[in-house]
């Protein structure tokens, strides 16, 4: 057996993306990634450099493509849910939320009030956790190492709370169509209250380390400018869009899961640069805390699962004495429930932006088509024109500021 060298896409194939100077050998082509720590995963960027200035930047994605959309077509609605955790691994419950809400919209299933409030609470905690990872790694990229350790300390507290509820730190699959896997444990409330007590001070600590830090400001102010109209045109969402001064938050614009009942501000900043996106995310963590506080204070009592036995399996305790429960249990776990021949699009605000799921049923127990419109995929498209004319070191700041997760990009 001889090993044939497999040619990557040649420079000739990419000629239309490079500048004319590349053909004359005036500029240098450099690979950044896919194993570069500051690309936040397996992102490969082909850079055309003039000295240290970026002339062109060509992102190459797909290294983490796992065919989740195709695989979900072969599983029942509920069994496919575990795969959604693996998309954006920093926002696992958010992925669960958008998927189960799409199912609920498709089949017309109601969710009890308590389940809805717990969902919002958990998702907002997850948003804080995701922003903490972003803050830690972003600061680390810009050579502020200690922030990373502080952020991951607090993130661990949130993951403990998730573990308490779902039995897992990250891949919880805690939300199910029609409600939750189970109710929260007794120690949940005190754990969240403890977190609420310490966390505001911790945000102040992070801000003390970065907000007025001259090195951080030098590296972020005036870098990666996204003008307002361009931000909209390129479909940017989330803090990346709000950092350009556009007040668009799906939680506010198209409320879902009862977000209309919470008081919070949509954080925006008119700076349009990397620093503006930093301030927006810091502000968002404080706003998320407000939502968590309100959710915890107004937690209704009651069941956490819909009583519709055609979609939600009966509790274990019923199986011992009810034949009907056994039948429902058997039907739901062998065959699954059937969804009508229709399609829905369900968008939610993930920590990175608009996370939408297009779900189409064909009358059977398996989704006919699932498509995830992921924020990282769309936001990453802006990197080429953001990076042009900047130094390579600034590219690191730009990638950090749009907060990509490659599992989210490649699906």
């Amino acid at each position, binding site marked *: *057996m001889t090993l044939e060298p*497999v040619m*990557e*896409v040649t420079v000739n*194939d990419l000629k*239309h*993306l490079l500048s004319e100077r590349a053909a004359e050998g005036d500029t240098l082509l450099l690979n950044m990634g896919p194993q570069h720590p500051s690309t936040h995963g397996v992102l490969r960027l082909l850079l055309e450099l003039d000295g240290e200035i970026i002339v062109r930047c060509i992102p190459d*994605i*797909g290294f983490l*493509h796992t*065919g989740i*959309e*195709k*695989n979900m077509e*072969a599983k029942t609605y509920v069994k496919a849910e575990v795969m959604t955790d693996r998309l954006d691994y920093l926002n696992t419950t958010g992925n669960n939320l958008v998927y189960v809400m799409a199912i609920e*919209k*498709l089949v*017309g299933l109601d969710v009890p009030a308590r389940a809805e409030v717990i969902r919002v609470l958990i998702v907002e905690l997850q948003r804080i956790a995701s922003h903490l990872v972003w803050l830690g790694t972003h600061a680390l990229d810009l050579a502020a190492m200690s922030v990373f350790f502080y952020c991951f300390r607090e993130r661990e507290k949130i993951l403990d709370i998730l573990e308490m509820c779902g039995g897992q730190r990250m891949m919880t699959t805690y939300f199910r169509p029609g409600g939750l896997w189970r109710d929260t444990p007794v120690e949940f409330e005190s754990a969240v209250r403890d977190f609420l007590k310490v966390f505001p001070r911790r945000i102040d600590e992070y801000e003390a380390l970065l907000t007025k830090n001259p090195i951080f400001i030098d590296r972020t102010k005036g870098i990666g400018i996204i003008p307002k109209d361009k931000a*909209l*045109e*390129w*479909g940017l*969402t989330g803090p990346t869009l709000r950092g350009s001064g*556009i007040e*668009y938050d799906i939680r506010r*614009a*198209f409320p879902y899961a009862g977000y209309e009942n919470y008081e919070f501000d949509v954080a925006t900043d008119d700076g349009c640069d990397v620093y503006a996106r930093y301030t927006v995310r810091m502000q968002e963590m404080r706003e998320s805390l407000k939502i968590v506080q309100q959710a915890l204070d107004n937690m209704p009592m009651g069941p956490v699962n819909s009583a519709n036995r055609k979609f939600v399996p009966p509790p274990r305790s019923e199986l011992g004495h009810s034949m009907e429960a056994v039948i429902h249990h058997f039907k739901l776990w062998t065959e699954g429930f059937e969804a009508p021949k*229709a*399609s*829905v*699009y369900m*968008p939610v605000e993930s920590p990175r932006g*608009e996370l*939408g799921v*297009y779900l*189409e049923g064909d009358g059977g127990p398996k989704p*006919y*088509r699932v*498509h995830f*419109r992921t924020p990282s*995929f*769309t936001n990453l*498209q802006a990197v080429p024109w953001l990076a042009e004319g900047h130094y390579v070191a600034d590219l690191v700041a730009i990638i950090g500021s749009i907060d990509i997760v490659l599992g989210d990009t*490649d*699906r």
Partner: protein
Amino acid sequence: MNKPLEKIAADLNAEFGATYTEDRGEVSFVVPAERIVDFAAALKKKHKFEMLASQTAVDYWPALAPRYHIVYQFTSVSKKLRLEARVPLDGNDPEMPSLVDVFPNANWFERELFDMFGIRFSGHPDLRRILMPFDWEGHPLRKDYPLGYEEVQFSFNYEDIEVRKPRPKD
């Protein structure tokens, strides 16, 4: 359907002959492939739908007319409205106009559709595979593309499957 959206829908219906339905609170238009660029441009300029939120496709194989639906989601950030446009496409390897000139972020959406469904977009500046390796054969999200498990061989179909069984190159 709320009032402003009703007006826009009536407008688009008159201008493009696009029929629309409302289902589960979502308004969905059916637009022929040759009108989609004008449709999107009118949405963006006239009706202030500034954002192409999502673009995807559905494969209805073995049906051939239409075999695919391209599904667009447009968002109006200023008016807080959403609407969907579906473009039916016939045949196994269809081609349709690209939306890149109106919404630049259609670039990667269309590359993904080319990669996953084999739909070609005319006027696209950079139609390459995006998620699969560049030398990959086939388009994975098509319904006639197998999931990759090993087919079970019985005596009656042993030969057939033996021929198409994937095996490493020698």
